[in-house]
């Protein structure tokens, strides 16, 4: 009895141990097999599992952030294979800024899915959305939590996602955030001889830190630019963009207007006359033109590339440049020698303001994609906003726009321009302009006018603004989005 009791007790002890071993074995097998099972499950769940899909992306030629989107796509191919079980390969097409819309539009107008994903410019959202060429993303975002990203500021949504302005309709997702920053030669600022000479000439210390430039006005910065303008040494104080190509001069003139209280139109009524051709804006135009004296000869033809050239070749001390081209602005030879700060405020005293133009581009999806390409396009976007993808994008020189990445402790130090970019991406410091379908036509007219004034073809800023305002309102009126132009418009000319 005692023995049987003992055996029974032993058996009772043994049984749980067996169970335990079995359970442990099952747990181990489940643990080891879980990824495969999950993957099998995921692959089974994804309708494209086992298929091979070819995607095409249309991006901007010679534009680093756009090419980063393209360069990183093999990472998505790996991700898609792992997560969804399909193979994806990418082909790429590109065109310069000024020609990309033309390339996209002529393809989309034929209802082609030649380009499945397009890196658009923010101002084209209206022109792409209005004819139904791109997908409205509201439902897609609602169905995919990965796309419900917390953006760094409301201007991200206003600039890259919304059309019409003020509506809830979302058509794009940010590929690259971008703002204007001021690139300075830190090595020149750190030169004691320069500091002493500046102090003696202007009775104030040479501004040298991010914080000092944060509070600087254009009037103060003019002293700095004048200090470094030495034509005899082939050195100039600064560089801005005055070129009539695409939107170059417009993007650089708007900060002079907006920061001092000017505006460009009334988006609710479509009125331009009486708003764009204001005295504030005429003064702003003259101010921007006056800055030519601190810039190298030929600055009236400066666009993005020309600015990069003069800065990297040491012809200018500073340059107002898009944060997106930071990598090009700071080549190996200038590493550690460049400080990137917020561009100065306009105006004086308490009324001084800082509203610069937004840059950057959204991703948009071709509305004529078949189901498979649409699905992969959405998967691609979901991958793009994964935290690790966003960080990798930043490490390679791109500018993400999501709050998590930008608020991460090390973001400011990843690239020299990150801090200034983040500063300028804050609401009220930057803004975008029209998303209207007539954008291209309004822009072309304006570029001609601004260029005519900056180059001296027409010396009367007010007359040029009258001409542009009338022309733009006429374009909007023809499209049924504005009242007819007033009588004064019939006498305007460039």
């Amino acid at each position, binding site marked *: 009895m005692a023995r049987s009791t003992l055996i029974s007790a032993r058996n009772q002890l043994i049984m749980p141990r067996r169970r335990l071993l079995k359970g442990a074995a099952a747990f181990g097998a489940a643990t080891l097999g879980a990824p495969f099972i999950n993957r099998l499950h995921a692959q089974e769940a994804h309708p494209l599992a086992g298929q091979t899909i070819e995607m095409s992306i249309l991006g901007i030629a010679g534009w680093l952030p756009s090419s980063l989107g393209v360069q990183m796509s093999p990472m998505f191919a790996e991700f898609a294979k792992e997560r969804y079980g399909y193979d994806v390969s990418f082909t790429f097409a590109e065109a310069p800024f000024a020609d990309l819309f033309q390339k996209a*539009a002529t393809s989309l107008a034929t209802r082609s899915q030649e380009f499945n994903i397009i890196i658009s410019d923010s101002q084209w959202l209206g022109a792409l959305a209005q004819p139904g060429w791109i997908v409205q993303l509201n439902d897609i975002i609602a169905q995919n939590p990965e796309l419900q990203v917390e953006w760094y500021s409301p201007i991200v949504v206003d600039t890259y996602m919304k059309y019409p302005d003020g509506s809830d309709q979302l058509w794009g997702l940010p590929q690259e955030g971008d703002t204007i920053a001021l690139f300075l030669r830190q090595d020149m600022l750190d030169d004691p001889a320069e500091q002493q000479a500046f102090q003696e000439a202007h009775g104030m210390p040479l501004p040298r830190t991010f914080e000092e430039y944060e509070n600087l006005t254009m009037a103060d910065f003019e002293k700095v630019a004048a200090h470094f303008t030495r034509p005899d040494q082939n050195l100039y104080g600064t560089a801005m963009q005055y070129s009539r190509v695409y939107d170059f001069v417009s993007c650089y003139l708007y900060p002079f207007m907006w920061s001092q209280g000017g505006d460009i139109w009334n988006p609710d009524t479509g009125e331009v006359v009486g708003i764009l051709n204001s005295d504030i804006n005429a003064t702003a135009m003259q101010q921007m033109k006056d800055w030519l004296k601190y810039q190298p000869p030929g600055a009236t*033809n400066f666009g993005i590339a020309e600015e990069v050239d003069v800065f990297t070749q040491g012809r200018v001390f500073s340059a107002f440049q898009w944060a997106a081209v930071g990598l090009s602005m700071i080549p190996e030879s200038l590493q550690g020698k460049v400080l990137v700060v917020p561009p100065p405020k306009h105006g004086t005293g308490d009324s001084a303001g800082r509203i610069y133009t937004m840059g950057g581009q959204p991703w948009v999806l071709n509305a004529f994609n078949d189901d498979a390409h649409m699905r992969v396009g959405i998967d691609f976007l979901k991958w793009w906003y994964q935290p690790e993808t966003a960080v990798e994008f930043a490490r390679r020189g791109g500018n993400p726009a999501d709050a998590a990445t930008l608020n991460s402790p090390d973001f400011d130090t990843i690239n020299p321009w990150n801090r200034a970019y983040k500063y300028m991406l804050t609401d009220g410091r930057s803004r975008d302009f029209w998303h209207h379908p007539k954008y291209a036509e309004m822009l072309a007219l304006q570029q001609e006018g601004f260029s005519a004034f900056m*180059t001296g073809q027409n010396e009367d800023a007010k007359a040029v603004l009258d001409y542009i305002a009338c022309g733009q309102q006429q374009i909007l009126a023809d499209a049924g989005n504005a009242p007819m132009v007033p009588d004064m418009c019939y006498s305007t000319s460039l």
Partner: protein
Amino acid sequence: MAAVTDPIAAAPRRRADSHRGLVFILLAPVLAFFVVFNTIPLLWLLGLSFHNFSLTSGMPPEFVGFQNYYQLWLGRNNFWGDLSRTFTFVAVGVTIQTLLGVGLGLLFWGSRTMPGRRIALTLLFAPMVLTPVATGTFFRFIYDPNFGVLNQMIQGLGLPMVDFLGSPATAYWAVLAVDCWMWTPFMILMTLAALGSVPKAELEAAEIDRLPFRKRFTLVILHHGKFILMLGILLRVIDSFKTLDLIIPMTKGGPGQQTRLVAVELNKQAFESFNMGFSSAYAVYLLLVSIAMTSVFIFVLNLRRRRGS
């Protein structure tokens, strides 16, 4: 009464019929090509010109009658300014190219024994075979005030830097100079072809008669070669009227509107603003102007020929 067919007369008619059939068959591919790629697009263009149609509006074309033509006539988008700039560009450009082309052509013709003549001619024709976009791009670099070789040379001579493409005073002429650089070789080629058509006997007779060069040129050379020369000028006028691919990389029509020729504006309206209706009317206007210019030219050519005969 049944018709009586003469078998002897019917045979050639049958041959003529079958010949006509063969002609039609041989012409059919060309005619089909012409209809598909010329006639239909032209009719399409004409139709569109009476509509308000923007590719980016998402709306179907709206019939507006002659409104697009009327707006152009009223000078919308500075149409008359563009046309005036274009006429100046054509007149000045083709005149310079013709004078230089004829002069250089005569020099080359008179130096047939010069060593290296073939190499010199090949080099001289090189600009003509280059793509205008490439030419425009590298001339933009040559003209660049900061890095351009031309300004380096100018400064080397102690002269001030010139912003050739950025200044309203110089941009138009800088572009015109490049057009002349590109197309003068074409006029040299036409001059050499014209000189080749002059009968050798007449030239020798003129030489034996010791006619001065001016008379030899006007009475012998020009008399025989003028048709080929006029053809060259006509081709240059038509081509120059359409100048676009040289201007886009150089100035995009700027500064302001200084180098905005009609083709630049037409391209902008059609492929940047996507105003397909308005740009079609613009294109029809240009077509009419081209036809008018060509007709006047051919009329003058025929007039001289009739007078000559």
